[in-house]
């Protein structure tokens, strides 16, 4: 048996960090501490506010059922907005993803421009998009659908592109080697390989759009948010609780349906 001294040196338990790496950790810690200290965190204020929360909750119960037909109609409109916005966003995401993925983009300039567009779609919050589209096309669900479409595009195009970049390069190379063009290669090798990932992303986008569609009504972009805003403005907290419960049931149903579909399809 070899004696210990003949083995190579014992490897370090922790990876060696350069001065820059160590400075990075320090900077991250400093950022967190700075953010916490400047956010006016106060346990005292939270404890003092608990009775107010209790009072609000007591005013919210029992939920009012008088406006259920109207709430049901707007809830359905909210759901339709989420479906339409997600569908249009997913459809728009596909070409944008192909143009922005490293292995499918026809040229680096097209990739750069497309990525910038997708990033812009993603970085502007959906509520801001809703305000923009309400100004552009007026109050109502159309503005909401457009806002959800843009937000879904920003979300899906990025993840679709990442899925395409991670796809096995073997089948596309095989098709290129037999003379297939770039469009045919994407359609017949890359898209089928990334389909499960794209379906999962689309279902997550649908869940996200369902939650977002509730808020869009607050700025007049249609859906149940309009009802919610009206109830809050009129201090009608029993109706507010009814709306919140209805939204909760809808979001829960959509999330469960989405999970079920993911399991079935994938």
């Amino acid at each position, binding site marked *: 048996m070899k004696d210990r001294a003949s083995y190579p040196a014992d490897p370090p338990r922790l990876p060696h960090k350069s001065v820059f790496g160590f400075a990075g950790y320090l900077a991250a810690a400093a950022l967190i501490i700075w953010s916490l200290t400047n956010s006016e965190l106060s346990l005292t204020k939270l404890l003092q506010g608990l009775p107010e929360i209790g009072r609000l909750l007591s005013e919210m119960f029992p939920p009012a059922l008088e406006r259920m037909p109207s709430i049901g109609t707007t809830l359905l409109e909210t759901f339709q907005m989420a479906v339409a916005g997600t569908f249009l966003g997913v459809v728009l995401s596909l070409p944008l993803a192909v143009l922005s993925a490293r292995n499918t983009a026809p040229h680096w300039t097209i990739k750069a421009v497309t990525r910038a567009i997708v990033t812009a779609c993603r970085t502007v919050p959906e509520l801001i998009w809703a305000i923009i589209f309400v100004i552009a096309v007026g109050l109502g669900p159309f503005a909401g659908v457009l806002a959800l479409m843009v937000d879904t595009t920003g979300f899906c195009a990025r993840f679709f592109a990442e899925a395409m970049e991670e796809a096995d390069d073997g089948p596309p190379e095989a098709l290129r080697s*037999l003379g297939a063009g770039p469009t045919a290669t994407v359609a017949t090798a890359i898209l089928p390989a990334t389909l499960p990932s794209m379906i999962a992303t689309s279902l997550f986008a649908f869940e996200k759009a369902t939650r977002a569609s509730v808020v869009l009504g607050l700025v007049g972009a249609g859906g149940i948010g309009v009802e919610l805003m009206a109830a809050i403005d009129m201090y009608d907290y029993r109706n507010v609780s009814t709306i919140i419960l209805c939204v909760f049931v809808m979001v829960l149903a959509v999330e469960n349906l989405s999970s079920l579909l993911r399991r079935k399809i994938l």
Partner: protein
Amino acid sequence: MASETATAPLRGNAAPEAASIRQAPASTELAVTGLSKRYDGEPQNVLRDISFRIGTGERVALLGANGSGKSTLLRCCMRLMEPSSGDVRLFGNDVRQLGRSALRGLRSRTGVVFQRHNLVGRLSVLTNVIHGALGRSRHPGTWFQATAAQPWRDEAVRCLQEVGMADYTGQRADRLSGGQSQRVAIARTLMQHPQLVFADEPAASLDPAAGEEVMALFSRLIAGHGMTLVFSSHDLDHARRYADRVIALRAGEVVIDRPTAAVDFSQLAGLYQREAV
């Protein structure tokens, strides 16, 4: 040959650029001259001043240890990878000078069988074989079996019959065994109607029995269709039985290039000896 007769009308759908490619003299299909390749960031060339010519109907075994440059050489010949220097002429065309369209046309006449088969796993066997026609037909109908014209479907089934896989048309490709996948990949190559076939270690990922079956089938089909074959392998026995010429590489250089009958296979074992670490 049945498939020749059946597909004669479809050849008219060949890509326009294929027609613009110069027809080479029948004798030489591949001519490699002074080919070198160095990967970015690597200190040494993977291929060094490689030169050889391959004529119509030849069956050439490319031998060499892992890292000797066999796969790189095959990829450079197809321009799936850019050579660093040197000249590659396929059917008389300088592949390094061709534009995208012309290169696609040239590739449509050159089949490649990969070690990992490279089928599209989520698609059916039939669709994968129809993909072999993507170089001949630019019509999106050939993207999937459900949309392909009946003559394409019929021809694909005939190709599957030739490799003994006609009962698996509807099977998803990722549910096949390794040997079955490689048979389907060969059927895809037959569907392509290539003049020259490159095979990168076609039996390497299979167990010995399946590898033997695939090589025997492959060799028979290549001969039956009158194609030229260049295959890389670690199996000296495959080289002895299925090739009529051996090109051996060591550290990116051609060290042997002679007819199989003139090769002393007992000495080829030296190709696989490693330097002491």
